Each structure stands twice: as structure tokens, then as C-alpha cells.
């Protein structure tokens, strides 16, 4: 599961990755024509909309790509850098950058590209940007208030608007397609070209079709959490799903034996877990199943993961989701903890055993009901599942 840094790609290798990514970035920007200020500012005077075409296309492709990676469980969005939102500094900083764009004709990335191919104005622009950073650094006490005002955290735009991610993605793609059409009309008008902006040539038809498919993909790639939660809301489906089960007696026996292959994954609310929990059990939540680091414990080899919750139905729901996420060794406790409490911990010694098997069970449960409560008292549980990885530090 991504991001690959720091587990798969180490921090040193990451610098090499940065260099390679930078090379591709530089080639693409230069080939697109971002190495000349005349082409860049064309956007603001209507004679060349290359910047908008490249920028908007890249943004849409990347957005849908990230949604897809998240949907297929390849990227843990909680570890990915989401630019934090500070309302006023974002707005005012953006306006100042806009002014800098029309005055200077570049933005930082494009100025580096242009300087690389010998544009003197770009080199001067870069020098200017050093001075700009220096002014900010030296005058920081003056700007700090504005810089840190209205901190909304790592909020994402669909949450801000109270929309579903996919709906927002669809609208943004639609807006982009519409913008591409409009700017072609404006561009032709400004440059005095009489040809219609869009003709039904194979080129434009293919382009339109790709755009249309991209916008539709937004609906296919629903958020994984939502679709899985939907899946387990069907009672019949949940009850008939084939899962590995463990009886309360076997469960109790393994606890008494101190079986280290047994890994108890406790899905009860944390308050209940804190009050009383089984020896060696780990508190786990629905969200943990989707996170890169917490879910690692479910992949430890030769462990029997027993999912416990208050009732079997809930256990089934969590186990089905885990199964769907690729954690194949999820076992559920028959009857849930309710049943465990009743049959084992609070075993009724007055019940009558008639057959041989029943009397065996009777003897075992009598024993277990006196041992396990002691174990619960003595043993400390593992607590909530460990989460030490932090969000990647990104941005500029």
C-alpha cells in the first residue's frame, strides 16, 4: 500500500526519486511550452490558453488517479500530504502570486524551466523570488498572524462543500471540459482565426470521449469505505457469508493455554475496551482496517486473528470487510462476546449435564469461569493498535 516512502523506498533513495521525478517534470513543462513567458501570460490576455489546458488536464487526471488508488486500496490517504487550509493566507498569498504572475511572466516552476534553456528574464525572476522569500523570512513576525489565521486543518474540498468526493470530481471534470471548449472559442476570436473551435475530426472526437470516460469514472470509483459499508448493510448477505468460526470453548481453552498464535482483535468501542478486555487483545476500529500501518498486524503469519465484538453480527460485518480487503485469516467468535460472557465467564453451574460430552463441557466451563476472570484482571492487553506513521510533510 502506498505511499511507498518510507517503508519500500528509503529516505536516501527518495532523494534520487525526487531527482528523477524532477527531470520528467522539467521535460514535460518545457515540451508543453512553459519555458517562455509569452506563452504563459497568453492565458491572461486570451491569445494562448496552453497553460489552462495543461494545468487543468493534469489536475483532473491526477485527481481521478488518486481517487482510483484510494478506491483500490493502493494508497492510504491518511499518510498522504493534504495541503493544509489557512483561509486568509491562501487567499491573500494567492492574489499576490497572481500579481507576480502578470508582472513577472512566470511562476517558480516555469521560471526554472525557462532559465534552464537560457531565458535571461527567467533568471532575473528567480533572483527576485529569492528576495521575496527573504523578505517573508525576515519580516516573519509581521506576517505570522496572517500566516496562521483561520486554520481549517487538512480539510478536503468535498467535505468543505458537504458533497461526496465522486460528485465533486464529476463536476470538476465537467467544468474542465466546458472550459476547454470555451477557451478555444475565445482564443480563435482574439487571434482572428475563422475556423470553428471544435470540428468533428477524429482528434477532437477521441479527446472528447476520453474526457467523458474520465468524468464517468468518478461514479465507478466510489469511496471504498462507503461501498464496503453498503455491502455489509444487507442482513441476509452478512448472515450467509462463509466465514471461519471459533467456538467459545475453543476460544476460552486457547486463552487459558496462553496460545501465542491467537491474536484477539477487539472491535468494541474503546471505552468498553478500556473497562474490561481479554488478555493480549488489541483494540481495533473500522477505520484501522483501511490504514497502512495498523492493518499490518492482521498480516502477521501463523496467527489466528479472532475478531470479537459484542454480538456475532457485528463480528461478521468486520470480518467480511477484512476479507474483502484481502485479510484472509479473519476468524469470528461464535455468538460474539455476549455468548462468551454467558457461557464461559458467567457459566451457570446449576445446569444439568446428561451426556458424556455435556459433562466434559460442564467441567471445562466450570474451570474456565474461575480462571479467565483472573487472567483478565492480571493480564494487560495490548491497547489500541499502534499508529506511529505520520502524514508525509510536503508542500513548498
Amino acid at each position, binding site marked *: 500500500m*502506498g505511499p511507498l516512502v518510507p517503508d519500500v523506498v528509503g529516505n536516501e533513495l527518495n532523494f534520487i526519486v525526487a531527482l528523477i521525478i524532477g527531470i520528467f517534470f522539467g521535460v514535460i513543462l518545457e515540451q508543453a511550452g512553459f519555458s517562455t513567458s509569452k506563452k504563459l501570460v497568453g492565458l491572461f490576455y486570451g491569445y494562448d490558453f496552453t497553460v489552462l489546458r495543461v494545468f487543468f488536464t493534469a489536475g483532473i487526471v491526477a485527481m481521478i488517479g488518486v481517487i482510483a488508488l484510494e478506491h483500490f486500496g493502493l494508497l492510504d490517504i491518511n499518510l498522504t500530504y493534504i495541503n493544509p487550509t489557512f483561509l486568509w493566507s491562501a487567499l491573500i498569498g494567492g492574489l499576490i502570486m497572481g500579481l507576480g504572475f502578470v508582472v513577472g511572466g512566470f511562476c517558480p516552476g516555469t521560471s526554472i524551466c525557462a532559465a534552464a534553456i537560457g531565458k535571461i528574464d527567467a533568471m532575473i525572476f528567480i533572483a527576485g523570488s529569492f528576495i521575496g522569500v527573504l523578505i517573508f523570512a525576515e519580516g516573519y513576525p509581521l506576517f505570522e498572524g496572517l500566516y496562521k489565521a483561520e486554520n481549517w486543518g487538512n480539510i478536503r474540498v468535498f467535505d468543505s462543500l458537504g458533497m461526496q468526493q465522486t460528485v465533486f470530481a464529476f463536476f470538476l471534470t465537467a467544468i474542465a471540459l466546458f472550459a476547454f471548449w470555451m477557451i478555444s472559442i475565445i482564443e480563435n476570436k482574439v487571434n482572428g482565426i475563422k475556423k470553428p473551435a471544435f470540428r468533428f475530426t477524429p482528434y477532437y472526437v477521441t479527446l472528447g470521449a476520453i474526457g467523458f470516460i474520465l468524468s464517468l469514472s468518478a461514479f465507478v470509483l466510489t469511496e471504498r469505505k462507503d461501498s464496503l459499508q453498503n455491502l455489509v448493510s444487507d442482513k441476509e448477505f452478512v448472515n450467509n457469508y462463509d466465514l471461519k468460526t471459533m467456538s467459545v470453548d475453543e476460544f476460552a481453552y486457547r486463552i487459558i493455554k496462553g496460545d501465542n498464535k491467537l491474536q484477539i482483535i477487539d472491535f468494541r468501542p474503546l471505552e468498553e475496551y478500556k473497562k474490561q478486555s481479554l488478555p493480549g487483545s488489541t483494540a481495533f476500529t473500522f477505520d484501522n482496517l483501511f490504514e497502512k500501518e495498523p492493518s499490518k498486524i492482521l498480516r502477521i503469519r501463523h496467527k489466528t486473528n479472532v475478531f470479537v465484538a459484542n454480538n456475532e453480527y457485528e463480528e461478521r460485518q468486520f470480518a467480511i470487510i477484512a476479507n474483502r480487503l484481502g485479510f484472509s485469516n479473519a476468524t469470528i467468535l461464535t455468538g460474539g462476546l455476549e455468548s462468551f460472557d454467558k457461557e464461559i465467564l458467567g457459566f451457570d453451574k446449576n445446569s444439568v449435564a446428561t451426556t458424556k460430552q455435556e459433562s466434559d463441557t460442564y467441567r471445562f466451563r466450570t474451570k474456565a469461569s474461575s480462571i479467565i476472570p483472573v487472567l483478565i484482571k492480571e493480564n494487560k492487553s495490548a491497547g489500541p493498535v499502534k499508529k506511529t506513521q505520520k502524514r508525509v510533510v510536503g*508542500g513548498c
Partner: protein
Amino acid sequence: MEEKKYMNPYLAGVLLGLLLIATIYITGRGLGASGAVKSFTVGIMETVAPEHTSNQTFYKEYSGDHAGSPLMNWLVFEVVGVFIGAFLSGLISNRLNLKLEYGPRSKPKIRIVGALLGGLLFGFGAQLGRGCTSGSALSGMAVLSTGGLITMMAIFGGAYLFAYFFRKFWI
């Protein structure tokens, strides 16, 4: 030799989008540019005036967020890559050429002052806005960050707002 034509903008956009997806998948962060300027500035200041930087909040906060030398920074490596990539691309397409570009009604002097001031404003704005067109607007759009999209709209909105006053620079 003739300069080669530029790439189709939509194709360039798709390639840039794919690169951004790969970047996020591998590193968990987006692309950027202005952050490297910041790292260089901090690096230079820490070398030139170490006593000064150890007292100022800005530098202290920077070293709090970034362990190690300011130049051992992801964006510094990435921007060095951008420079190499753009140079190679210019070489292949015959666009390597030392020149000062300015609009038909502008003059070299105006262009020089404009570039310097524009750079200054962009450098300052990118600090305030926590990123520039790449780091905040483009990468922010990819992960649908509210702040990134606000910055994006402010950059382009602001540019349109002020474009009229500087039209003599360009057209």
C-alpha cells in the same frame, strides 16, 4: 535549425497528471518548486549569518519542521531535476538560446524590473500561501485540498484581475 513545435497541451497535461499520480503514490507528497527557493534561502542565510538565523522565528520553525541540512530536501533535488530535464528538452528541440524575452510594446529595462518584481511578489506570495502553482494549486487539486483549490483560484483570479494594468508589458 528550426525550433521544434511544442507538445499537444492535452497530451502534456495527461503526462503531467500521470507523473503527479506516480509522485503521490511513491512519496506521499506532490510536486513543488517554491519550496526549493525557500530551502536555498534558509541554507544561504544559515551559512552567512548563523547567529541571526538562530534567533529568528522563521528559521527556527523551518529547522523544527525539516531535520538536517536545508539543502538535503526533497524539493531541492526535484528542482535540480527540473533544471536538468528542461535543459535536455530544450537541447532536443533546439530551443537553447540565451535571450531576454519581452512584449512588442515593452523594453528590456521594463522587462528586467518586471521580472525582478514579479519574482519577488511570487516568492513572497508562495511563502504566505504555503506553495506556488505546483506545490499548492496543482498538487492541492490532485488531493482535493480545500486550501490548494482556494490558492489556485486566487492565483489565476488575481492574475486576471491585474492583467489589464500590465497589458503594455505583453501585448
